[in-house]
């Protein structure tokens, strides 16, 4: 589906995101596998809780990191994440 700022992403049913101090990173865990996330991927994915839409996620990120103009990057990442089945979209 086409992703807009109204889309609500949620970390996929068979995935779990958690902070790993030993790796100093968020990781995405799934059956017999793990993806180590870079900082921006981790910050976006941990906000994909099935409640916040993309507009709210962007607003939260821009406030937290005192940044502007993140929309294109966030949407591009959510597109990639959906292809990988890391997130489900509603």
């Amino acid at each position, binding site marked *: 589906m086409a992703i807009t700022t109204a889309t609500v992403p949620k970390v996929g*049913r*068979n995935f*779990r995101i*958690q902070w*790993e101090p*030993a*790796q100093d990173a968020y990781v995405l865990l799934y*059956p*017999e596998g*793990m993806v180590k996330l870079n900082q921006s991927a981790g910050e976006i994915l941990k906000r994909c809780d099935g409640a916040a839409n993309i507009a709210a996620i962007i607003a939260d990120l821009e406030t937290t990191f005192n940044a502007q103009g993140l929309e294109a990057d966030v949407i591009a990442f959510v597109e990639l994440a959906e292809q990988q089945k890391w997130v489900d979209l509603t």
Partner: protein
Amino acid sequence: MTDLSEAVAVQDTAKIGPPLWLLAELTYRCPLHCVYCYNPVDFAKTEDELTTEQWFKVLREARELGSVQCGFSGGEPMLRDDLEVIVAEAHRLGYYTNLLTSGVGLNEKRIGALKEAGLDHIQLSFQDSTREMNDFLSSTRTFDLKRRAADMIKAHGYPMVMNCTIHRHNIDHIEAILQLASDIDAEYVELANTQYYGWAQVNRDQLLPSREQLERAERITNEWREKHGNKMKLFFVVPDYYEKRPKKCMNGWGNIFLTITPDGKALPCHTARMLPGLEFPDVRTSSIREIWYESEGFNRYRGTGWMKEPCSSCPEKENDYGGCRCQAYMIANDPAAADPVCDKSPFHNRITEVVDRAQIAGNAAQVKPLIYRGPKESLQLDRPF
């Protein structure tokens, strides 16, 4: 082994990453008798299994170092009555927990208790697509039971990996195996060609498929992917005997992988206990930190410092770390040699001879009776591989 102390001394501890993957082999006991089991051939000689408390210690210490993926395997892990308690502790510590089972012993009560304990995922093994072949290859009547286990796994909302070990006797059924995986609604399918360790090494000539069989199976798997998209994620693992470069075994010795055997030995891979002249530490007397960073068993083949020719000057040595130490020992009789799968190995002909034999259907070696994994056979054979 004269340069051993040097190889160990140059290890840069700061560069050794954590043991991200912990494989807890809870028991060697198993109701199945698979002819390709990777467990040591002499498993029946091993002594006491670790207690619940000892497993808690392993889980706690490995988690402190950064282990995060945890597999519960065996043998058949369902044979441990304390499986649920051990899984609950692993979940509490923050592991992603995987149960690798034949499905035997899984019932409504236990699968519910495992869910409650926080089990994240179940990998269910099948031996083939039909009752007749499944039951022949495992020397049990378990096919119907596995089908019921698959239904229970789905009903309880677990993601499911269906694993089927592939070899000469079932590789021609690959389409039916994929259909079975689709029927039971598996999210992931591992079509893992047999790797020749343990019991598979004993039965190697009977199990290695021909090149034609292998190419056909790969083609059918690719066609399935094209036709059905990625609803089921398919992994097709080729047998390394058909390669010219060795696999990057365990992603490198002592790099991310830590196996604990039922009797408490810590190993860099499932089969390393066969290697001669190398003492592997016991989790009862050593901490996981000492084991991972300081023990001779884990440092001996770490990195590239231990290598001999043709590996030490090979431009690809960082790609595959010289392949598998166990295969080097089994085939070249030297654990520090190049994996003979590599065509630069002076012993590569010992691989190609086996591969050549596999092209002749019905030869004398292939028609020998299969030897099934069992305690009686283990004691009779009385050898590590």
